[in-house]
């Protein structure tokens, strides 16, 4: 059926309005659930970086986080890129720090937390809260085998983390994702230099 321009134009305006309105309504409806999930993921990530996450349920994550994690300045720095530096605090003493980091990888930015012991000689864990790497290739940096390699990894001031067999540790990159793997280390080494060991430099 042939229809005039007016009908076509009005139809487009009407259908767009209806669909956009429906989507906006859906977004508003889902927003509380989505925000709650995001907060929970962030808390779980911090616990993971501090090596406190042992297959906790959602409720346990909130409980653990509230009872053990608190903002704690490190080298006089309170926050990195707007996110507070957090610590595993027991009896008022920090046992480990979760340092937020941000960098750029192959396709997009990379955000997460780097866990460091209070005497700054070991990593307690590494976690990513945002990455946009190719799933199945660079995206595999988010898999347990990769992340768990960083637990207990020795660090020292002025030293850099490298792949391969190193004195005191072995670190594997992700096969088929050299650029992403290198970007992770670049970001981590920057976080070590600029945040973890920042106090000594000044």
């Amino acid at each position, binding site marked *: 059926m042939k229809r005039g321009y007016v009908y076509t134009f009005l*139809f487009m305006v009407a259908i767009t309005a209806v669909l956009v309105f429906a989507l906006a309504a859906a977004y508003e409806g889902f927003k509380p659930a989505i925000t709650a999930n995001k907060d929970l993921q962030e808390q779980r990530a911090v616990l993971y970086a501090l090596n406190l996450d042992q297959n906790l349920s959602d409720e346990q994550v909130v409980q653990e986080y509230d009872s053990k994690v608190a903002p704690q300045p490190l080298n006089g720095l309170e926050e990195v890129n707007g996110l507070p530096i957090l610590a595993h605090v027991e009896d008022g003493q920090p046992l480990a720090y979760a340092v937020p980091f941000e960098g750029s990888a192959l396709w997009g930015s990379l955000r997460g937390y780097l866990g460091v012991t209070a005497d700054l000689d070991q990593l307690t864990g590494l976690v990513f809260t945002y990455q946009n790497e190719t799933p199945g290739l660079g995206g595999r940096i988010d898999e347990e085998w990769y992340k768990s390699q960083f637990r207990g990894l020795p660090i020292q001031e002025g030293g850099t983390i490298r792949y391969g067999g190193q004195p005191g540790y072995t670190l594997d990159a992700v096969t088929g994702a050299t650029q992403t793997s290198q970007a992770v280390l670049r970001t981590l080494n920057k976080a070590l230099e600029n945040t973890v060991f920042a106090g000594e430099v000044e």
Partner: protein
Amino acid sequence: MAAEKLSANFKRNMFTENQVLRAILGICSSLAVTNTMRNSLVMGLGVAFVTGLSSLTLSAMREVIPHRIRMLVQTLVIAVYVILVDLLLQAYLPEVSKQLGPYVGLIITNCIIMGRAEAYAQSNPPIPAMFDGFFAGLGYAMILLMVSFIRELLGFGTLFGFQVIHTAPENLWTIMIMPPAAFFIIGSMIWFISARAARKAAAKAK
């Protein structure tokens, strides 16, 4: 047009007119996501879901959509469903959403969805159109799983993330998890299917 039986529709979309192997649609995502079976499965289900729903909606509106802007409307409807799927995953399956992240948005660019809207939904009633879209998505999912079975097994030695081949990493074929592998696996499949169809056609002609 004579109404097509549901079983015939299923067979057509899964085998004889499989969208990936016969219509060569949805190739870009087939190349990208098929290095692990888990990604392939979720991507396949996502596409089946969106194709089914958008075909249903577009078919229901087929009488009122002005012909010359039908593609604009198709894109709009498909986009709405993809965003809905993304929101639903974020709200109720945050783990899946995290893993699939960039792929959900990519469903929008899958040519199969618009292909079914153009080829079927705009000239058939809503319910058959919905099944047609859903089956086309399943046919796509099936091919993805076949390709990823080969790639994940030979490239990582795993299936759905479970270790199947126990061997040193250097014995695995890294090429399988890189994009080129998908090119020659899907290429071989298309070759096989086309050769078979050509033989059948030749036998009929005699």
